[in-house]
């Protein structure tokens, strides 16, 4: 029996045209039963291997699963080597007798065979490593990035979500409903804005292309973080889940005051909290009622030349900054002249630069001035004169660092401000620019950021309008915390500017804000925009000056002077705020 078995085995071996496997053990961890038993049997029948040792080597390995294999790489290698050694010791005679039976087909010694698989192992690990990284990246994307990524107008799937989720509400900071979806019995839903045109530019509209918060928070409004069990029950019973609510930082009362104060003028008002970056109010006129946008759409589009009610002037309206730019000129002067406190100038009502005459407002003769008083009285002659003496390159750098020509950290679409003075500019243009005319353009929101930074010791906080997201029963899903954008100027510079801005209120052009129980600070501006006609009325400011709680940026288009038209709006807002 043994003899014939031998023969059979021999036949099997040579018939298969293999060289006799000189491995007495496995080097991979994937022995399946067939191969290992074949090996066992063949070597047993040759009488050169005892079953136990072989079996041990095999079954231990045979039982290892691939998963454990890859994670216990070191142990496996060690085990391999151990088994190799065990096998070597006990079966040195194996090599001898086995080799006799080797066919001479492939003259490769035992070590090489083992070696080839070692390289294969390395390759396997490399690939498994690649796959692990791949899956890690995928997982990371799904966990961390996807929420922000998919909230994009190019992602049409968001509308699919609306089929299964009732759009959430947008709320004011005290829970007032600014936007909500109302469903009638037939399942038709309509987006309703209880405050009509009051918040239309910041909250946005739903029909005819989403804007504002309706756009930027679209995905979150269509996501429901209700109780998971409730969600599954709803899904299975074909009921829609209720989307999350967006709680904004908007203060309804302040928004109303700003809205009413702006009246029938065109313009914009921005109210911010300098210490946190929260946007408390944003008004832009002309505006429209988002509830009726579909029916008045034709008018809105047609009238875009004259009225442009669709534009959010706070973020997209570019205006010459007028005298509010003297803040920048003054800052640059201080940076270039350590002895700015000793600055002196005598104003005789105007200044002539290369045949171009710049007059002070109403031809007022300011007389002998230092920097602070010139700033408070907004003397054009002084600042035009200062401008011509500034280093154009340094001035450009300062403006860049104040985010002119730069991306602004805003959570909504906006236009970049522009400042284009350079070394090739003429002195006339320099003088114009120094007083906020020339080619410089700024948006009301950017001006608000600048004044917030000054109010906050030079540090600009990132503006945001979404305070937190909560599910429809009020549990907080995520909260936005104030975060620093960066330092726009040193705190010393901010202090000096703030000081000068206090003087503007107490002794200067913003006198309508003086004598209040709160100390306000700011700068007026009257920006001319075409020769002859009236000017845009600007005011930027904050209060209380020693520990600012609100900052404002106001522009009233074509109305007149900042003192007459913008400052009173600031007063109404601040009065309301500080009467609480």
């Amino acid at each position: 029996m043994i003899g014939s078995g031998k023969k059979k085995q021999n036949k099997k071996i040579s018939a298969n045209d293999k060289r006799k496997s000189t491995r007495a053990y496995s080097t991979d961890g994937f022995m399946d039963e067939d191969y290992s038993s074949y090996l066992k049997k063949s070597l047993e029948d040759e009488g050169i291997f005892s079953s136990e040792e072989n079996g041990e080597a095999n079954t231990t390995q045979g039982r290892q699963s691939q998963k454990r294999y890859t994670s216990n790489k070191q142990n496996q290698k060690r085990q391999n080597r151990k088994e190799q050694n065990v096998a070597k010791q006990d079966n040195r005679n194996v090599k001898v007798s086995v080799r006799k039976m080797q066919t001479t087909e492939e003259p490769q010694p035992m070590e090489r065979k083992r070696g080839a698989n070692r390289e294969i192992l390395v390759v396997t690990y490399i690939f498994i490593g690649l796959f692990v990284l791949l899956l890690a990246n995928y997982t990371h994307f799904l966990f961390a990035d996807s929420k922000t990524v998919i909230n994009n107008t190019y992602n049409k799937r968001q509308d699919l979500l609306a089929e299964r989720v009732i759009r959430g509400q947008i709320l004011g900071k005290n829970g007032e409903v600014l936007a909500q979806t109302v469903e009638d019995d037939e399942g038709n839903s309509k987006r309703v804005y209880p405050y009509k045109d009051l918040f239309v530019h910041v909250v946005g509209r739903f029909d005819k292309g989403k804007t504002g918060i309706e756009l930027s928070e679209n995905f979150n409004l269509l996501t429901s973080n209700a109780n998971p069990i409730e969600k599954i029950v709803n899904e299975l019973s074909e009921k829609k889940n209720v989307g999350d609510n967006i709680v904004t930082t908007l203060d309804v009362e302040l928004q109303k005051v700003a809205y009413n104060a702006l009246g029938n003028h065109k313009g914009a008002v921005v109210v911010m909290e300098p210490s946190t970056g929260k946007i408390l109010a944003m008004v832009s006129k002309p505006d429209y009622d988002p509830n009726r946008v579909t029916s008045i759409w034709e008018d809105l589009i047609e009238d875009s030349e004259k009225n442009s009610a669709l534009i959010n002037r706070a973020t997209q309206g570019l205006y010459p900054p007028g005298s509010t730019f003297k803040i920048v000129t003054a800052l640059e002067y201080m940076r270039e002249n350590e002895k700015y406190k000793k600055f002196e100038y005598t104003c005789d009502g105007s200044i002539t630069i290369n045949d171009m005459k710049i007059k002070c407002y109403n031809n007022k003769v300011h007389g002998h001035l230092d920097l602070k008083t010139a700033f408070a009285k907004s003397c054009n002659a002084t600042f035009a004169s200062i401008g011509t003496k500034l280093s154009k390159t340094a001035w450009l750098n300062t403006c860049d660092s104040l985010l002119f020509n730069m991306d602004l950290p805003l959570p909504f679409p906006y236009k970049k401000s522009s400042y284009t003075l350079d070394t090739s500019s003429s002195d006339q243009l320099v003088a114009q620019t120094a007083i906020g005319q020339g080619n410089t353009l700024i948006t009301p929101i950017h001006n608000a950021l600048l004044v917030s930074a000054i109010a906050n010791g030079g540090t600009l906080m990132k503006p945001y309008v979404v305070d937190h997201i909560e599910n429809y029963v009020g549990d907080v899903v995520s909260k936005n915390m104030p975060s620093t954008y960066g330092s726009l100027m040193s705190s010393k510079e901010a202090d000096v500017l703030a000081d000068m801005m206090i003087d503007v209120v107490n002794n200067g052009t913003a006198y309508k804000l003086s004598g209040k129980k709160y100390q306000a600070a700011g700068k007026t501006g009257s920006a001319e925009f075409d020769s002859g006609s009236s000017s845009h009325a600007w005011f930027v400011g904050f209060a209380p000056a020693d520990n600012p709680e609100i900052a404002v940026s106001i522009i009233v288009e074509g109305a007149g002077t900042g003192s007459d038209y913008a400052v009173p709006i600031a007063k109404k807002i601040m009065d309301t705020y500080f009467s609480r």
Partner: protein
Amino acid sequence: MENLVIELARYIIIILLTIYTLYCFTVFRSSDRKRQAKKFNKQIALLYVIHFICYLVLFLETKNMQLLILYMFQIAFFAIVLSVYKVVYRNLSRLVLNNMLMLLMFSFVMLTRLSISLAIKQFIIASVSLMVCLIVPLIIDKAKQLENLGLLYAVVGIGLLLVVLVFGRTQYGATNWLYFGGVGVQPSEFVKILYVFFIASLLSRNYDFRQIMKVSVLAGAHVILLVLEKDLGGALIFFITYLMMIYVASHNPLYLFAGLGGGSVAAAVAYKLFSHVRVRVMAWKDPWGHIDKEGYQITQSLFAIGTGGWFGLGLGKGLPSSIPVVESDFVFSAISEEFGGIVAFCIVLICLSCFIMFINIAMKMKRNFYKLTALGLGIVYGFQIFLTIGGVTKFIPSTGVTLPLISYGGSSVLSTIIIFCIIQGLYVRNK
């Protein structure tokens, strides 16, 4: 009621596929053949159930009778393949067979959802391929000379690539299509196999420096031709396969490092030289900045994957058609969108399981030629998966390669099935 079924189906598919994937990795824990067989049978059962549920959902949504007919044919297909292959390939790797059918099943389902005419074409191609490949074990047995034809393989391969370069038609930026009266073929998919044979054949006999140089020159010719055809993904796959095979054949890690170094240099040069490389890298780095042109495809893919989340939007409920080329390169995104991240994850693991089995089989091969062949084909398969999925998930720049077996594409399906069958054939013959 319908909606209930469709909603429940989503969760059931996830659970079943997770179980299937777990089996892939735990089946070899027990060395008891009977237990293993049981697990394999369970896998087949899971395959049929998932297949049924998917088609049920699709039918409920579209009410298209064609679907039912296609479904019947597919059931027959699975049943026939499972039974015939076990006979022709005695003692084949059942795990590889199951995985192959599972991946094909997802391909059928997803293509049915995207476009039923594509699904039918894919089904026909798969059926024909599997029929044709029944002769593979025969060839391996009879044609002993296979391993000596190294140079012939190389010459034919380079020749085919040259033909494509000169006469080929450009699609999606790569000139790697030949059209024979309306039917498009991608010869590079088949050259892949010849290429592996050539390297395996030359290196199995002799791996001294001269031979390696010979191999390198010929392999380099392949890679350069592919680069000229702007098939960057193909060039990468060929290069990495060559590198790994050289490393394994020569047992010398120096080649590996040298190759990787050389490859990086070549990549940098390619970046400087070719604008289409720069475009792809730019689209990878910042697709959001170019969201309406170069970055459109990858951003849509990310939208799809992200909106689907872990549980998916539901079969038929997503918007996969917003992704360009979704039926071939980006089919993974469509699967992730509708079936969910868990299912997509499992599919990657199933592909990984196939790759590991291929390597395992390579390790078991006794003849060097077969060992290298199995290894080479495994790497071709594994690396292509990595490139595809990496590209659609923005892990690496998109390289324009398909997901084997799941993407639509006759040449791709046929060549992948040939690869699977060759490896099965080698595995079977080893006994």
